[in-house]
């Protein structure tokens, strides 16, 4: 009888472990999907985003504004405004990384990848290349300057 109770208790423990672990995984999957969908589609903001093209090339980041202005290694945006960064590369694969925002996206030649950016506070933030792209990879740095809203 004691053996029966012990095996039943072990069975309950096994089931609890399986169900508990599954529940944690399902929860993480749901919140990750929802969060990623919000970032990928820009649905965290109701504003119509302004498009800025980002072109990575050895070893600079070029930013092309809607009016055709090109800025090298510096991008200027306004706080509290949503921007759509369309990222590509001219030569090899780079990775567009803003550490203070936790955003990183590959810049692949021939492909355009879109990310949405909105920063609440003026300041200067780093942009790094996060994919080894050649001997000057460590020099491929840029700055994102967030200006006060107009």
């Amino acid at each position: 009888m004691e053996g029966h109770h012990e095996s039943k208790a072990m069975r309950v423990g096994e089931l609890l472990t399986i169900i508990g672990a599954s529940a944690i995984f399902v929860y993480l999957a749901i919140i990750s999907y929802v969060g990623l969908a919000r970032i990928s589609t820009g649905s965290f903001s109701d504003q119509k985003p302004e498009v800025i093209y980002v072109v990575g090339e050895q070893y600079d980041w070029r930013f092309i504004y809607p009016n055709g202005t090109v800025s090298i290694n510096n991008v200027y945006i306004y706080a509290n405004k949503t921007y759509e960064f369309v990222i590509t590369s001219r030569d090899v694969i780079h990775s567009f990384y803003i550490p203070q925002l936790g955003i990183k996206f590959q810049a692949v030649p021939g492909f355009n990848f879109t990310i949405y950016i909105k920063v609440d506070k003026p300041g200067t933030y780093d942009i790094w290349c996060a994919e080894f792209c050649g001997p000057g990879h460590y020099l491929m740095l840029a700055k994102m300057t967030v200006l006060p809203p107009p």
Partner: protein
Amino acid sequence: MAKLSLLDYLAWAGLVALLMGIWVLVGIVGSWIVNQYIPIAPSPVSSIVFSQFNIVYYSGGFVFSLFTGTLIFFAIKFRERGGESGGPS
């Protein structure tokens, strides 16, 4: 199967709680150190990214503490003692 006393259960829970506490402390200290060099920009994007990181980190810490605490507890509780046959008493 060996019976565990109330003290055993308390020790088991205490060990799990200790490991979880260490995990949380490492997370807090690590975040503080990183924030000194790369402060997080206030943004809806960064809040989504870093809140998800924290959720994954602490969920992982909970599971780790549970299983590793149990492992350590069982390894000590049912260790081989000199002069006795192997296995739980």
